[in-house]
């Protein structure tokens, strides 16, 4: 229906252009500005659906790719494109933004400024997922920083300024590392920022010689730190509980639903294809880190008394599965061993990202609904909500079970497949990761018991508890339906992702086996002789 150029550019820039329209509104006219924003995010979401519709799942290559020179003196191009890895995340971004915009009715302070920043944030997120030029990627990555800083810092909770600066600082520090890695690739990759071209060079098929092993390792470590901060993975996760707790509900939804995925996406899109050797070198460490994050996040969640902080730590735990799934690249005798399991791991990681995008968005929303009514989040002061708000509690239960990983809901698929693929990598780590599920069940069930069950609500503001509003109902039902659909028909997601992921796995394992693995084997045989 639309040309590729128009469709992708519109998805990226429509929200930002839409935010200009807000300037024309009167600041007191809050209601119309909110509707205007919802309309903008809805249009963007429709465009992302259109993108999904025109996407051919049988192709492993980039689709709708186009490139326009931006800074020719530095060979920077405005290159956008989509493949099976970025497509689900783009659609997820569109959806979560729309839902967060609907949830933004709870914001009543400086509405105009809030909505403008919100829309600019959406542009940044879309740009990150769609850009295929490293420089452009970096620009969009940082573009998200400023709106996020102000959204947390102005509209957040009591410790908002601390949380905002912490978020800013962590991401900026990661960004500087990414910048240095970017320069490494630029100067060693024939003055190019094109991610596909750089990946070709890394695979030994480019115009210039492949990146040296030292370079790949150094760059991978820098990139990984940059992305692990966003992911977040232990030990770079400490900004997350603060940011999540202090951010207003819609922003928490975006943080958990989309921003955390950028870390995982960055690893798949940039860190791994550009430094296959580095990725393989660090594989065991990454898997172990993922497993540790799972367990650590679960234990930390269990210890929380703040409802939102609990959900925040559960994100650390759940994103551990992503790291685990991405890195299960097993090498035996200098060759990639059972690459299919690795492909399954990446598929699982991608699925887990989307599933977590739905379940944690839902969890934050559910917490927010409750907070709007009783103005506190202390788990020990809840109880008996199920009797006062039966519909809400039922929907919340589904969302929390989805987070727990109950079969039939979206959380299960990602967790089970990443643990399965890990068995091929290292059974011990797989066992530890699997036991994380028990801990997850522990804290989620315990939370539900403390909040929803019980005879009566004894906490503050019992008079504030009113039934579900239609607006809230819309958001909750959408998320619940998606959680069920993805749990029952996971193929909806696997189908578009599969080709791109197996293409990536093939190319990386070939590269490793041909350039690094074989050489390693020769060396070991020489040593043994």
């Amino acid at each position, binding site marked *: 229906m639309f040309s590729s150029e128009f469709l992708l550019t519109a998805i990226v820039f429509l929200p930002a252009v839409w935010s200009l329209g807000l300037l024309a509104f009167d600041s007191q006219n809050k209601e119309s500005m909110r509707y205007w924003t919802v309309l903008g995010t809805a249009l963007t979401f429709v465009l992302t659906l259109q993108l999904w519709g025109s996407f051919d799942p049988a192709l492993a290559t980039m689709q709708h790719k186009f490139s326009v020179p931006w800074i020719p003196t*530095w060979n920077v191009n405005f290159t956008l494109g989509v493949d099976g890895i970025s497509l689900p995340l783009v659609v997820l971004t569109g959806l979560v933004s729309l839902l967060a915009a609907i949830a933004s009715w709870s914001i009543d302070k400086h509405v105009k400024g809030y909505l403008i920043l919100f829309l600019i944030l959406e542009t940044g997120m879309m740009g990150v997922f769609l850009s295929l030029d490293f420089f452009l990627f970096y620009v969009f990555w940082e573009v998200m*920083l400023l709106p996020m800083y102000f959204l947390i810092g102005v509209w957040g909770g009591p410790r908002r300024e601390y949380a905002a600066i912490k978020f800013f600082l962590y991401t900026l520090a990661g960004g500087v590392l990414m910048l240095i890695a970017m320069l490494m690739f630029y100067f060693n990759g024939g003055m190019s920022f094109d991610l596909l071209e750089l990946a070709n060079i890394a695979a030994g098929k480019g115009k210039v010689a492949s990146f040296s092993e030292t370079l790949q390792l150094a760059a991978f470590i820098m990139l990984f730190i940059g992305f692990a901060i966003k992911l977040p993975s232990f030990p770079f996760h400490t900004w997350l509980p603060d940011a999540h707790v202090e951010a207003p509900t819609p922003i928490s939804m975006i943080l958990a639903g989309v921003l955390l995925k950028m870390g995982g996406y960055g690893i798949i899109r940039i860190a791994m294809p550009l430094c296959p050797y580095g990725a393989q070198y660090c594989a065991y460490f990454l898997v172990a880190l993922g497993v540790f994050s799972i367990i650590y996040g679960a234990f930390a969640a269990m210890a929380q008394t703040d409802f939102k902080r609990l959900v925040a730590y559960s994100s650390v735990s759940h994103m551990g599965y992503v790291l685990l799934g991405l890195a299960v690249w097993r090498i035996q005798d200098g060759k990639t061993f059972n690459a299919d399991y690795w492909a399954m791991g990446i598929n699982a990681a991608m699925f887990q990202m989307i599933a977590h995008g739905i379940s944690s968005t839902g969890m934050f929303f559910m917490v927010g609904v409750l907070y709007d009514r009783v103005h506190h989040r202390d788990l020990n002061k809840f109880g008996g909500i199920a009797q006062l708000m039966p519909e809400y509690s039922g929907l919340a239960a589904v969302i929390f079970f989805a987070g727990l990983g109950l079969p039939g809901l979206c959380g299960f698929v990602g967790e089970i497949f990443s643990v399965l693929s890990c068995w091929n990598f290292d059974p011990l780590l797989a066992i530890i990761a699997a036991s994380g599920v028990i801990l997850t069940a522990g804290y989620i069930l315990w939370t539900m018991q403390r909040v929803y069950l019980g005879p009566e609500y004894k906490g503050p503001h019992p008079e504030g508890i009113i039934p579900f509003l239609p607006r809230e109902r819309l958001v909750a039902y959408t998320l619940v339906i998606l959680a069920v659909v993805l749990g029952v028909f996971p193929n909806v997601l696997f189908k578009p992702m599969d080709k791109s992921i197996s293409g990536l796995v093939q190319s990386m394992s070939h590269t490793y086996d041909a350039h690094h693995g074989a050489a390693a084997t020769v060396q070991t045989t020489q040593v043994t002789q």
Partner: protein
Amino acid sequence: MDFQSLFQQFLSGGGTLQASTYRSLVLFLPELILCGSIVAMLLARLTSLDKCIPTHWFALLGSLGAFIAVLAQFWELSIDGQPSTLLFTGLAVHDEFSVFFRGFLLFFLVFVVALTVLSGIPDQEDAPDFYTLLCGAVVGMMVMSSANHLLMLFLGIEMASVPSYAMTGFLKGRRQSSEASLKFVVYGAGAAGVMLFGISLLAGLTGTAEFGLLGERLHSIFANGFTASHPEARIAILALLMISVGFAFKLSLVPFHFWCPDAFEGAPAEVAGFLSIASKAAAFALLVRFCMSVTGSAAGVVQGLSLTMGLGLGTLAIITATFGNMAAYSQTNAKRMLAYSTIAHAGYMLMAVSALLVLRSTTGSELAASPEQMKQAIEGLLYYLAVYMFMNLGAFSIIALIRNQTFSEEIDDYKGLIQQAPLLAVGMAICLFSLVGIPPLGGFYGKFFIFAAVFDATRVHWFMWVVLAAGGFNTVLSLFYYVRLAKTMCMDVRPVDARQVSMPSNSPSGMYVLLVCGMVLVLGVIIQPLSRVANHAAAAFF
């Protein structure tokens, strides 16, 4: 020699690359226009003409006219691709690089004059004095940026400095202002003395003061490699060190920066903004040209000297950037904070010069950097300066506009300004985040280009990794204090007893802020034109 032949020589003298006196004067036209407007301002006061025509019109028209003249020169150069021309028998040089900086300074002068008109410093009575000093300083800076002779170097620096001293103390009634001015003078005089001694050593040693010949002579002095064992070599190194003291003073590099915070705090914000940008830019123009001249010529590059100077400047850059950022953190006065930020930014920009020299030191070896790579280092510096002009000017002009309404420059008095004057708060936030270097604001690209040049230089010498790491570390470090100011303005609540500030966006001042801060954004999205111009200007050396 009779009059006829004198006149003939005036019209068509000179050699292949040397312009005749007449041609020199034509190419010197922008400076002459500015000088003319200075004279006109003084005469206007003499004849009481300034009572009916405000003096700022003279300054504005003069700087605009001079800017247009430079534009015409730039256009001419860009078409013909001429080699550089020597003016006034080799005292000055006319090439893309000098034209870029002269245009930069005049463009900036237009903005500064506009700002002073809007903010009302100086008043009617003092206006001729102020604008005379301002334009005089710019003439000096323009001389700096086209100097091709040690004498012109010194002359330019002094011509730029002396009016600056007077402008710093322009608020005559304020003790602080006078104190700042005195500090500035004493430091300036000291630095100038040391520099002059260095110049005389260098000129005495090499027997020439022309930049074009210095490289050759030094090349023969260091013919047996770069060692200090030879007495002549020792004197040369000493001379270069002493000259660099003068540069360090102008660039406010640690440890010659002490004047900077005091001068900025004491001076009106407009003057501080002017000094922080124009004198830095001119000093960098001179520094690049001087370094390129002494480290080599067509005959060859003094590799050891170039590398040592590059690494030395790199060390200085690290210390300056780190110190500036650290010291800025604890400031409570907005201007003083920005003064330290200026010091830090001088450090970043110095990294580009350092990378340039390190890359240049490879000339003639198998690792040789291509001219394109060295051009990119200079391009990074020029882009950075151009963006820096807008972001720093934006910050200082907002400080000046707030001062006009609250009579305060303390950060605490900026609390919650967004509730009363959103334009000022948002404009300030844009400038500050651009100073941190966050895309899509212009500051990021300047920083990126410089870091890219430094990265490029890492393959020559490992120390450049340290420089690069320091640059990255400082970027993160600087976030703290810039964000603190942005946070104060955008997030805190305005105290009830605070003075009312208003700045509608359709007032002239509001439009000025919109324009300057808008340019910071535009330079972050449309990069190519300026990047090309900068690249073209850098081509003058290759």
